[in-house]
């Protein structure tokens, strides 16, 4: 695989290996394991591109994203997972003062979008 994201989003390629994850469980585990620096780097690179990403994925019907757009979409979903940690939790990789996350069983956790 060479170009893994749609052409106009190639600047996000460095994020793909770590953050283009298909399930909510995987994205949650990745966010928990991230350093503060990784979270901030991911957030800062994604934030300005979010409107364009959402416009791009909306050029396809649900469930019919080609591989490159699907990868881009999973980056956006990782942004949904990461954003509260930058915007609300002071950059902390865990939810502060919270129950142990791994004890919550998500029935939808393994679904692939």
């Amino acid at each position, binding site marked *: 695989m060479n170009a893994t994201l749609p052409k106009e989003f190639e600047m996000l390629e460095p994020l793909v290996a770590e953050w283009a994850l298909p399930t909510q469980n995987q994205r949650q585990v990745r966010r928990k394991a991230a350093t503060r620096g990784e979270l901030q780097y991911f957030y800062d690179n994604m934030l300005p591109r979010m409107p364009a990403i959402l416009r791009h994925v909306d050029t396809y019907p649900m469930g019919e994203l080609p591989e490159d757009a699907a990868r881009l979409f999973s980056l956006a979903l990782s*942004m949904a997972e990461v954003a*509260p940690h930058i915007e609300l939790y002071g950059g902390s990789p865990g939810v502060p003062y*919270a129950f142990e996350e791994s004890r*919550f069983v*998500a*029935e939808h956790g393994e679904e692939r979008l």
Partner: protein
Amino acid sequence: MNAPNEQLRWARKYPELGMDPIAVEPCVSPVFFEKEKERVFMKTWLKVGRIEEIAQPGDYKVKKIHFAKTSVILIHGKDGKVRGFHNTCSHRGNKVIVETGEETFGRNKAAVVTCRFHGWVYDAQGRLSMVPEQERFASDWKREDHGLTPVHTDVWEGFIFINLARGEVQPLGEYLGGIGRHLGGYPYAAMDECFSYHTTLDCNWKIALDAFSEAYHVSTIHAGSFPNVFSTGLADVQLFGDHRTTGVCLTLDAEPTPIARMANEITGASLVAKRGTSMLPSTVNPGRREDFSFELSVVFPNILIHVSEGIWFTHQFWPISHDKTLWEGKYYVPRPKTNSQRWAVEFAQVLQRNAWLEDTATMEDTHAALESGAKSHMILQDEEILLRHGYNVLERYMAAEKE
């Protein structure tokens, strides 16, 4: 400054509840729990599913009910009716459906279930319809006398309820009474995209339920996920017999963060988004307050139903023992139609999960601390009236004469 009693608006509305401290024994006593199972959980209507989970004739769901040491088969019959049965074969008592977890789903086109052990077949009305080698049973043995053991089952607004009592029970509609009318007519079925969580908590079921039944905790517990978002005061508290409800409001001055704003603009799926026209029944937020966020309703004994604009969610607390509870949290939204809507749902749902992680953080500590015996009572303020009412109702059930 207001005179002190001006602050006690719910105590004035419901003076019969008083303002006394509440004994903690019901939360920590194994003896109390044994009685509570018998007098409350074996006698009341308990929500066990949604009709969408078994939408087609022949669809079935099996749910473990730990406190009753049983599991219940809920099966959608060809006549459109959902019926419930103990998952226990009439032959030698094996489980008819082999379970794979807390909940097991399946479907059978003929709307029958078959015990794996010796192949006894039951239809959706619980009748024993086929027995291999039937001629080898006693000559006066009749198949029609050996159906599955039924469990009272009924459906309200798509919620499937069971009642484990033997003999006659009060009909579900009558049991729900005012709360059923209050929450009826909300478009539950139109929002069937479900995100579901469960976990086992080392605490009494009431400690878990109580932690979700007031807004006094939001400025401390949710300082992370919902900073300055919700008002701690309740709105339009109403008690309906065994059940209770309140509105929870926003502070309106919270500025959404950049990603929250993006998500809210797409769907308004988050609880903290403001919206225009209402899908709520006219009984909910009757004054159509601008700052209304969601209705928090407790259906006795163990489920919280929350309705809001474009999203609803439930918390349910299943006692396993006096100090162990199975919690189920379910978050429902309309099915997204576009990828960006799906993204916005993901954001709102993940943030809600985080808030639930904040909520559940206190429960095991509360139970452990109460087990110390250091405190015999807990103290409730006026805005914790739903908890007070809950203990009041519980006391009434516990005092009832044993049948």
